[in-house]
């Protein structure tokens, strides 16, 4: 039977391991969810779903599963069939133990009056061994589990944490509120304190176990006798250093081979808070419990305390269906008390078995002091029953654990399903880096489109305005004024000087050559002077580049903050767009196009305005006759020179006037040029489609490339956070998957 149990042990241990993993993974998952929930990338709405609801309760359920499987594990790993012996004080427990084990008072102390058993023992039938193995407290465990408990119970705020502190602790002689139980507790604490000298060496042993010969065991398991307590000598209390004791010895009954008997504390004697712990211990340690009730003058009936004790034992039954399989009632009838036994049995039958003997619990009869009686009345029927019922109880324990595990697993899986849904919403809201870059690129493009379109609209409004561009009008007037001043100032040399030079030239070359040279000079000079508008044009274009650049910089994070403005900024942007790893040919071309924009008088306007200078010539073709006509044929005199000068000033003034007029009325004003250029730039930068010629997938895709290439500069810190958020997200998802797997594994193992 025990071998069959042991054969099933690995599977149970595997399940326990799985469930312990489940517990750890739940903890990890909860922590991972905390981290994810607190990440900036997770929106508040999504964060609400990122938690394990009733996490504590769920862990408690897991602990319960583990506890149940651990109980099964303990059950299956026993080398012996363990019989727990329980019962109130003075019921004959120790006597029964002596009868079963063959040990005496030195090992299992008994007494007539005071409780004598200080340490509960587990006694195993061992044909070859005769010893006791004591498990000892460390100083820390002693102070924490024993002394601290006393202090707390007595309402003391502090307690000693070292033996030295304990040694010098000053306990009051009496309590300010001397309730009887507290007085007793204080007295016991003072006894413990006073006896430190006797057990300190045991606490301080290097080895935590101590093997003791059975002949010297009593001092470690029994309270001091009444006599020693009232002697004047210091009372030793070495049992205080002992946690528990295991006794190996040969049981007198040969037919009982692999048997252990466990001395259980008297139920009802321990504090209420410790009872559940005690019950758990029972479940782990014993296969069956004997609850002894002694037929005596003082206990020949089933009391409420007995009923409570039975109730507690029933709790330890766990998943075992039949209460009677786990607990047997033993009526201990000492010699001379036979007359008390019948009423007791009758009372038990009435109180426990609903009036039908054996209906719920089996009642065994024995005289605990008589080994043969114990053998025949208790051991034989008990072991016979166990032979049949123990495998059943094993199955029931295992089934119970499985049932608890299945329920808990279902709850966890439901939670995981909800969590997975919540995680999807987190992913939908925040996305991964690739998706986020695409989103950000789209938004960048949209934002730029809005502002650039506004700039285009502003330029268009200037083009369509009821008023001329005042800056342009002023620039033209300034240049025109300069030209007129030059003309009126005698073509740069003064009227008299000019006329004098003309007259002198007449003398050598006649009027024609000088006039031709001068008219050409005047035409060139007027053209040159109007070319001064180039400063205005280039300023306008640079201002446009600056406006565009500022918009780009405003939306490009740290990417363009180091650049200058206008041309410098756009040049840097063009370089960035010419990125071999993430080429953006369409965007690059748009920017370089804007950089290449020129508006120059000589190259762009002069060819258009040149006809306005046609009047500056010495002869023309008469439209009516088709014959050449001289504009002027001056006399070769001073008057002729003056006439030539006046004529030339008229022609020059008219030419300048016509150029000015053409500039003012012209289609090609700076604002029109910049408007057209910026509109084209925006079209190319924002709206260009795919182009095989350029090798461009279109503006939208190029924005994604641009965003990928410079994401950390465009959105400083954002992607570091997203990566971190994704790590957290992935951690949660991994833990969810792991938990699913662990639960499945646990299910398979069970």
């Amino acid at each position, binding site marked *: 039977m025990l071998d069959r149990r042991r054969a099933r042990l690995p599977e149970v241990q595997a399940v326990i391991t799985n469930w312990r993993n489940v517990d750890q993974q739940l903890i990890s998952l909860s922590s991972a969810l905390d981290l994810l929930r607190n990440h900036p990338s997770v929106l508040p709405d999504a964060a609400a779903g990122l938690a394990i609801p009733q996490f504590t309760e769920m862990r408690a359920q897991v602990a319960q599963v583990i506890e149940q499987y651990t109980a099964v594990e303990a059950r299956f790993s026993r080398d012996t069939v363990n019989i727990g012996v329980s019962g109130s004080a003075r019921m004959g427990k120790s006597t029964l133990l002596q009868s079963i084990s063959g040990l005496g008072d030195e090992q299992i102390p008994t007494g007539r009056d005071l409780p004598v058993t200080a340490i509960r023992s587990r006694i195993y039938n061992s044909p070859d061994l005769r010893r006791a193995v004591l498990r000892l407290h460390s100083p820390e465990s002693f102070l924490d589990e024993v002394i601290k408990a006393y202090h707390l119970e007595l309402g003391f705020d502090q307690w000693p944490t070292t033996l030295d502190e304990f040694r010098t602790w000053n306990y009051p002689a009496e309590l300010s509120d001397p309730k009887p139980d507290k007085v007793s507790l204080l007295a016991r604490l003072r006894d413990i304190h006073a006896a430190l000298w006797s057990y300190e060496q045991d606490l301080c042993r290097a080895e935590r176990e101590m093997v003791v010969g059975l002949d010297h065991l009593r001092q470690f398991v029994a309270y001091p006798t009444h006599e020693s307590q009232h002697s004047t000598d210091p009372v030793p209390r070495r049992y205080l250093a002992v946690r528990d004791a295991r006794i190996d010895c040969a049981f007198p009954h040969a037919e009982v081979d692999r048997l252990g008997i466990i001395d259980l504390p008297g139920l009802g004697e321990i504090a209420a808070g410790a009872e559940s712990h005690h019950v758990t211990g029972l479940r782990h340690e014993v296969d069956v419990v004997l609850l002894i009730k002694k037929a005596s003058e003082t206990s020949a009936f089933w009391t409420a305390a007995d009923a409570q004790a039975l109730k507690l034992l029933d709790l330890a039954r766990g998943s075992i269906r039949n209460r009677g399989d786990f607990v047997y009632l033993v009526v201990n009838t000492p010699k001379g008390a036979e007359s008390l036994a019948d009423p007791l049995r009758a009372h038990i039958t009435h109180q426990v078995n609903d009036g039908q003997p054996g209906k719920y619990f089996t009642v065994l009869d024995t005289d605990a002091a008589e080994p043969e009686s114990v053998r025949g009345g208790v051991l034989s029927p008990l072991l016979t029953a166990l032979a049949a019922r123990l495998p059943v109880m094993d199955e029931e324990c295992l089934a119970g654990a499985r049932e608890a595990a299945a329920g808990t697993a279902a709850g966890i899986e439901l939670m995981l399903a909800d969590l997975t849904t919540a995680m999807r919403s987190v992913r939908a809201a925040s996305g991964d880096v690739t998706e986020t870059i695409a989103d950000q690129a789209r938004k960048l493009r949209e934002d730029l489109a809005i502002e650039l379109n506004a700039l285009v609209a502003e330029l268009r409004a200037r083009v369509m305005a009821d*008023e001329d561009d005042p800056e342009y009008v002023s620039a033209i007037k300034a240049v025109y004024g300069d030209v007129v001043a030059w003309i009126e100032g005698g073509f740069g040399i003064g009227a008299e000087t000019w006329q004098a030079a003309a007259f002198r030239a007449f003398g050598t070359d006649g009027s024609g050559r000088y006039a031709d040279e001068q008219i050409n000079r005047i035409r060139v000079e007027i053209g040159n002077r109007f070319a001064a508008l180039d400063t205005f044009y280039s300023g306008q274009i640079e201002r446009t580049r600056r406006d565009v650049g500022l918009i780009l910089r405003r939306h490009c994070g740290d990417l363009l903050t180091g650049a200058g403005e206008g041309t410098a900024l756009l040049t840097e942007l063009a370089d960035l767009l010419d990125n071999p790893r993430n080429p953006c040919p369409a965007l690059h071309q748009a920017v370089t196009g804007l950089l290449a924009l020129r508006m120059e008088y000589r190259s762009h306007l002069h060819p258009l305005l040149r006809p306005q200078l046609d009047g500056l010539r010495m002869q023309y073709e008469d*439209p009516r006759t088709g014959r050449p006509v001289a504009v002027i044929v001056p006399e070769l005199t001073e008057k002729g020179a003056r006439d030539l000068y006046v004529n030339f000033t008229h022609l020059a003034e008219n030419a300048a006037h016509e150029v000015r007029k053409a500039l*003012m009325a012209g289609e090609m004003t700076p604002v029109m040029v910049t408007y057209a250029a910026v509109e084209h730039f925006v079209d190319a930068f924002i709206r260009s489609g795919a182009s095989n010629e350029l090798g461009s997938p279109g503006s939208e895709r190029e924005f994604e490339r641009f965003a990928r290439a410079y994401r950390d500069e465009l959105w400083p810190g954002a992607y570091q956070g997203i990566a971190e958020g994704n790590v957290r997200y992935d951690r949660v998802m991994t833990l969810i998957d792991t938990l699913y797997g662990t639960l499945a594994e646990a299910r398979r193992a069970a």
Partner: protein
Amino acid sequence: MTTDQVAFKIGLLGPSRVGKTSLVTAMLSEAQRMLAGSGVAMVAADTATEVVIDGNREALQGDLLSGEFLHGSLLGTVEPTYFKLALDPGVPDARIDIELLDFPGGWIKPKDRVGVEDQWEKCRKFIAASTILLVPVDASLLMETTEKEHLRLLPQFLTTVQVEQVARDWAIERNRRPEEPALVAFCPVKGEAYFNDNGGIKNRSVLLRQRFDTVYAGVVQAVRAEAPKATILYAPVDTIGCVELVRADWTKSSTGIWGFDAKYRVRGKAEISRMGVDDLMTAIAQQLIYGKRLAGAQESDDLRALANRAAEYAERSEGFFRDIWLWVNRERQARRTAAAQHDREAREALHRVLALDAVLEKIAAQRFGPRVSRL
């Protein structure tokens, strides 16, 4: 003013200094050229007109001699000016008086004619009696204005709003007399620089016409709407011919008053070379001849009824038909006198009266030059 009831009336609509006097001078000069040798003379009919025209001629001669001159445009004055001319065949009572009124556009707004209501009423009657409106248009203003700020000043400087209002009233009056002819002639002046048919190099006449159409669209539409049968002519006129625009500037005085100054130079040999005035005279002659034919139609049985109506109408009508009726009656009277007297003097008088008729017929028969178009 004794000829008020018998003069052939022409209204002149345009801002001050647009060149109305120059246009009248040019018309007089051109008429004299066209009538030369015909025995019919075109003369200034009163001293005031003679003085004004002489002054204009002297100023023009001065400008031509100086080689250059400035011509400014100012906001309109409000003094009406009458020009009185006459086609005189040399026969007493046989001449045709032609009276032109420079209509003060500033009086169109009631608030601006307070205190001059009598003169205003006189002007209004004159315009109502006119069968011809001449609208001189400052071509340089149209062509040399490029800034939007200045373009907005054009209606103010060209008085297009006032011209439109007077032209509309005139057209309404014409429409009430469907038997009578009606003519509006828009005459761009100071436009020598925009044509190449009279000594200029560049032909920008198309652009000039486009600008006229834009700026004067309201005036043309008003006439067309109110007097659908009226003849509307676009007839650019070179009143000098030998001048060329040098430059033009919009200026603003320290008090915020805008002005437009155009500087001209004299080109070639400084010989006046009018262009388009003959077209204007042809149009006027056509008006006279049309009326005369209408009045003389009583000699035809078929047209008698119409002639009777015309005669009756002339009795109660002012202006054109009365003038024409008188002219016809004078011609008949001359014929009757010549027939009755059979003397040389009478025949000579008849000859002159008939010569006037013939020369007007001849002028009216001329085809318009290429500058002219019907609107």
